């Protein structure tokens, strides 16, 4: 396996509704910033790939217009996934394994504020089997949380603890949207939103963008003082049909974790793409994260959740921490689909 590292990460602050910028204006600053960090021009990048969803903007081929923000002239080698940018990063990683390129640019953008995100996600991800029943993404997550509580795998108190920790950690993250000191007791006094979920158990609606630069080992050591090497990466998907899944477990995360080699060494911290507090509990268990592992030092998706961006942000955040020396080995995770349907696990290491 060719060693590949994250050598740059840039992001915009997540906001509830960015009425000012359209996608080109979201992409241009993060791509410029990421390239600036490593002193490269777009023409020097071997492969470029983006992650976004036209359903968020209600406009076909928005990812093509977004190219205006990166300067694709003379023509560049470019691709797109209609998914979170974490899967765009996976495509870039595969491309780098082929050996014909040494660098890759990955970017993602999402404006979750433009439509009713709860309805958009159902139409985007499952137009056939569940959409006619009209279950929105929050209701599905609530069913999952209910199953978890009924099985005795967690308590509402533990879910509130996850939120309180996220808000506290996010205080150190200038890009986070929701942050502050709250106690689990105060959170538990709030009303249910979609029972058993309270509003704070759900992710904020966020607009944002981020970009990552990947490089082969040789290039990475020249471009970056302390690259964050991807020593394992894998993604797995489960059935569309929620009735055939055990919603209290994340089998796909466990298989991806094993294939990515999560358990081959200790984990200093984890960045988990858990849009709902109950999902962080499921993921921590599937990844066998011990009590000593710091989870979501950035605040995670409960603090900022630009859809299509939040997964790639987990990888970028984890890599940044490693490059800063805040840890030597980290797990980054991204999810897609209702109730953690598809999961990507990435192991990042300092050397």
């Amino acid at each position, binding site marked *: 396996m060719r060693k590949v590292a994250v050598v740059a990460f840039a992001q915009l602050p997540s906001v509830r509704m*960015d*009425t*000012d*910028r*359209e*996608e*080109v*204006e979201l992409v*241009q600053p993060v*791509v*410029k910033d990421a390239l600036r960090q490593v002193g490269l021009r*777009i023409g020097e990048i071997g492969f470029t790939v983006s992650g976004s969803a036209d*359903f968020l*903007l*209600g*406009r076909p081929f928005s990812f093509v*217009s977004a*190219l*205006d*923000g*990166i*300067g*694709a*002239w003379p023509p560049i080698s470019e691709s797109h996934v209609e998914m979170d940018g974490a899967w765009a990063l996976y495509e870039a990683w595969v491309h780098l394994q082929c050996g014909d390129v040494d660098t890759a640019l990955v970017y993602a953008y999402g*404006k979750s*504020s*433009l*439509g*009713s995100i709860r*309805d*958009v996600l159902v*139409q985007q991800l499952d*137009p056939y089997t569940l*959409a*006619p*029943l*009209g279950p929105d993404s929050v209701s599905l997550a609530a069913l999952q949380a209910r199953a978890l509580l009924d099985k005795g795998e967690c308590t509402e108190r533990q879910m509130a603890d996850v939120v309180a920790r996220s808000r506290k950690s996010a205080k150190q993250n200038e890009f986070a949207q929701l942050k502050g000191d709250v106690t689990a007791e105060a959170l538990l006094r709030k009303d249910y939103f979609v029972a058993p979920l309270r509003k704070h158990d759900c992710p904020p609606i966020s607009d944002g963008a981020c970009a990552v630069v990947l490089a082969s080992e040789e290039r990475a050591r020249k471009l970056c003082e302390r690259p964050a090497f991807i020593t394992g990466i894998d993604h797995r998907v489960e059935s569309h049909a929620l009735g055939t899944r055990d919603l209290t477990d994340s089998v796909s995360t466990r298989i991806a974790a094993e294939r990515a080699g999560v358990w081959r060494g200790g984990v200093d911290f984890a960045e988990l793409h858990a849009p709902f507090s109950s999902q962080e509990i499921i993921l921590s268990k599937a990844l066998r994260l011990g009590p000593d592992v710091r989870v979501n030092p950035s605040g995670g998706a409960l603090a900022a959740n630009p859809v299509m961006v939040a997964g790639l942000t987990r990888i970028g955040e984890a890599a940044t921490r490693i490059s800063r020396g805040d840890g030597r080995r980290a797990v980054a995770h991204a999810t897609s689909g209702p109730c953690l349907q598809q999961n990507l696990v990435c192991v990042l290491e300092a050397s």
Partner: protein
Amino acid sequence: MSTPVKRVVKMPVRLEFIVTAGRTYSAFLRQLAEQKIVGSRCPECRKVYVASRGACPTCAVPTTERVPLADTGTVTTFCVVNIPFGNMAFPPPYVAASVLLDGADIPIFHLIRGIEVDQVRMGLRVRASWVPKEQLAATLESIQWFEPSGEPDAPYETFREHV
């Protein structure tokens, strides 16, 4: 043999969105309500984009400098629409064309009226026909169509880079 299922669940699919035009495109739209056309210049290659999306697509830098443009221009290419479809602006035949506004480096797409369809040609000089003042709004529909300005045709060399 089981009974065939005959019931069908009908579920209307409808999603509504708020469009964010963005900083640069908004500037263009707002000027249309003032019966003005504004372009945006790339600070690096100096090209003037009209209806810019916020960055120069070749240089990837924000097109922040606003440039007032004339409402006259040249037809660089066009097509005669002969086939009827839903929500047509006019009964066919009519002409849709790329119009290179004077001072711009990229054409806009609009309708051509005030001339027989078989007389429309590359190089035809045209002028915007605006809606009445009270109907002006932040939309390209503030221009109803372009019509011949009466000037001599533009030589091909003057717009060949924009075809």
